[in-house]
């Protein structure tokens, strides 16, 4: 049962979360098909905020660190993200895909950002962007699924079903608001053995039949003794849903959109989809990464007690025609991250990107790159100490064509667990200690 009284709460309809993209990276919004059909997502019509509501039960303290994770599904090509432009081995391996020295945004005489990362350069100049280089682990598998599981479980050696945050949730006690993802499905990283994070629904935040439905819904969903494990999980997700709905709606009624260029409150068009002309700029903006981060920013500003948010952007598996695909994805990432970090100025909020692997040095014949190993990741925000962390891997001392890693990815997790979330890193890292990195 939810921890606070639900029955007295005011239901306020809002399409605020309409069209946030799914955790799997393709679901509702970030989505050329829905866009071409003129659908913004699973959202329903917007009703204006009807009345002010009671505030949330628990609020975020201004000192509590918040971690926002951006999952880049598909394996972003780190070598065309942070570009070793002065290394002859770079252009030698990438005669068609490589960027010329005059094209990159130089950070120093050796490395530069992809030309689509102009916003990140402003964060770099403001010392709010940490670039962690050569991140990976021993014995990479080159499998999307295995590597994404490894990154989400933080267990590289065995097949682990729980996520690193999920294991913290297991021992922290039941709190459906502690960690949340956006979209219908939830990433494994929030899945524990006994407990799991929550997924914020897309579309309306009101139960059908409104408040009258609550009590019977809770009665049907409440887990009972000796219930089959999967059935009990169905029930738990139902009762947690009510907790999440109330908390999120309370906050959204008081918070206007903050990330420039997005407006989640635009009502999706309800005209039958096959007759609608393509293209709805506002809906597209609301449904992409920027729209997801806008919702997160509003929830943080509104004081939701959530400490971890997971958002996602898919499409990074660039075996073919890489340049056009990665350019547009990096531009989207750049705009969304920069807008979010600027909107969160002064808040103890740390944003971090991750993806399952980097890609090979040498391009393939399809104008793309194949699955590789170690990679670069970004950490940004007001509390972040900008600069490079970890050594840049060599482009010539390769392991069977792959970059060698210089920084264990669990060092990054140990750092954010200890210094952003304030939890003992050993709890999420199988009892092991890893040296932290001083980026926060």
């Amino acid at each position, binding site marked *: 049962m939810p921890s606070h009284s639900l029955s007295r709460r005011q239901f306020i309809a809002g399409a605020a979360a309409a069209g946030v993209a799914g955790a799997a990276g393709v679901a509702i919004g970030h989505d050329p098909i829905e866009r071409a059909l003129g659908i913004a*997502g699973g959202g329903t019509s917007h009703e204006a905020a009807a009345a002010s509501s009671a505030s949330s039960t628990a609020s975020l303290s201004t000192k509590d660190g918040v971690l926002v994770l951006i999952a880049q599904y598909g394996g972003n090509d780190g070598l065309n993200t942070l570009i070793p432009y002065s290394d002859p081995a770079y252009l030698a391996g990438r005669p068609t895909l490589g960027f010329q020295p005059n094209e990159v945004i130089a950070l120093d005489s050796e490395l530069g950002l992809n030309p689509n990362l102009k916003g990140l350069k402003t964060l770099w100049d403001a010392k709010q962007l940490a670039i962690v280089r050569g991140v990976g682990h021993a014995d990479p598998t080159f499998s999307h699924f295995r590597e994404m599981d490894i990154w989400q479980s933080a267990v590289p050696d065995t097949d682990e079903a729980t996520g690193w945050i999920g294991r913290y949730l297991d021992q922290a006690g039941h709190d459906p608001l502690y960690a949340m993802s956006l979209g219908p499905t939830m990433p494994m990283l929030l899945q524990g053995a006994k407990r799991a994070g929550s997924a914020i629904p897309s579309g309306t935040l009101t139960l059908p039949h409104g408040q009258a439905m609550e009590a019977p819904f809770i009665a049907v969903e409440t887990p009972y003794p000796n219930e089959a494990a999967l059935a009990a999980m169905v*029930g738990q997700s139902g009762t947690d849903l009510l907790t999440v709905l109330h908390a999120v709606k309370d906050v959204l009624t008081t918070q206007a959109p903050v990330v420039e260029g997005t407006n989640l409150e635009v009502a999706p068009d309800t005209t039958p989809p096959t007759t609608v002309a393509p293209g709805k700029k506002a809906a597209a903006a609301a449904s992409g990464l920027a729209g997801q981060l806008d919702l997160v920013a509003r929830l943080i500003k509104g004081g939701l007690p959530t400490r971890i948010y997971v958002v996602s952007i898919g499409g990074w598996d660039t075996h073919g025609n890489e340049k056009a695909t990665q350019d547009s994805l990096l531009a989207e990432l750049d705009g969304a991250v920069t807008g979010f970090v600027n909107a969160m100025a002064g808040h103890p909020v740390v944003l971090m990107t991750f993806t399952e692997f980097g890609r090979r040095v040498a391009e393939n014949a399809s104008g793309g790159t194949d699955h590789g190993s170690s990679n670069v990741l970004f950490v940004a925000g007001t509390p972040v100490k900008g600069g490079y962390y970890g050594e840049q891997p060599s482009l010539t001392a390769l392991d069977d064509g792959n970059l060698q890693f210089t920084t264990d990815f669990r060092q990054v997790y140990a750092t954010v667990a200890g210094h952003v979330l304030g939890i003992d890193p050993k709890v999420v890292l199988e009892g092991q200690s890893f040296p932290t990195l001083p980026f926060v």
Partner: protein
Amino acid sequence: MADRSAIALLLRRAGFGPTSAEVDAASAAGYGPTVAALLDFTGTDPADASPVPTFVPYQPRAARSLTLQQRQAINHERAIELRQTQLWWLSRMTSTSHPLREKLTWFWHTHFATSFDKVRRADLMYRQNQLFRTQGAGNFEVLTQAVAKDPAMMLWLDTATDKKAHPNENFARESMELFTLGIGNYTEADVRDAARAFTGWVISPLTESWALQARQHDDGIKTVLGQTGDWGGEDVVHILVNSPASHRWIVAGVWSHFAYPVATTDPVVNDLLPGYTADLDITNLVKATLLHPQFTSSQARTGLIKQPVEWVVGALRALGLPAGEDRVVTALTALGQVPLRPPNVGGWPQNEYWLTTASSMARLQIAAVAVNLADLSPVTDVAAAQRVDATAHLLSVDWSPPTAAALGRVAANPKELVALALVSPDYLLN
């Protein structure tokens, strides 16, 4: 008279959820004869009346030569074709008299998971779907050889642009990891050599089907799973599907999809392995699965959550509602499982993956719409005290005592009763 619960389980797993009349008829026929009937694909199928999509003939054009308006118009046209193809398939799932054929088609779509999002051709997705439907119950090697040369798959995993000088490993790797062997049963050297074997495979622009471009094919010596020769792609597929690791992978895959998730070393896999190894025949494997004692065990009955397609189509069938409508795809989008658009080549995960707060919300909203559209007279027409049982019969489900008690509280309102029944933990178990 067979155990009605076991029959209902069989019909749910071997199809997309039965109507109560279908459970009644199958209960009268018995379990074994029902398995035989499910595996008999002869005779006409009302699903063939589902409107087949129309496709605008494909014209290759350089993207750069198009204006923004032209590109948007093409994207719109393709999105409409995709939608027609999805609705055609969903209609087949609800209207078919051969539910296991459609369930196997779905199984292969999750196994050889291919997405329109990269293929960008609904006509090719349709062709692949028909391939699963026509060859999905036969020999696994025949099926895999056909899938390897299927144009949608060749675009999806880049075989179509694979050249001798720089082999693209995508198809070779995913074939081993997901389609035939499972991780841990091959080496990186196997992937690299197998990738060389698929070089030179192209889609002929004239026939829009597989062709070999000899000058782009690497005809050198390769070693795959310890076998050395100047292998072509067909040889690699042959080596993979006939290896012992593949036998276990496919047996465990079928069992995990139809019964409950198992590892390749599970005792039930040992039971089914000799039969499958003998002929790689999918019909025989599915038959042995459905007839295995563990298939109707309590572990099986509590071992799978209905995936969104199973939940939505099952509810539509039980309530007598059509599936070929845009709102059905909208519902599946909200639940995170859209046919022809899996999130990646791994397909969709099972069980816990579908049990989030967000999907709980979506299910309740969809259930509320469904009960407004449905004829609920089997529930409405009986006295309030009988409505919880009547709902169980309508949905072919057994209520646990706590669920029955909770539903009893809303028996006065049949719409609310059926909506809550559809989102109850008991109904979510497949």
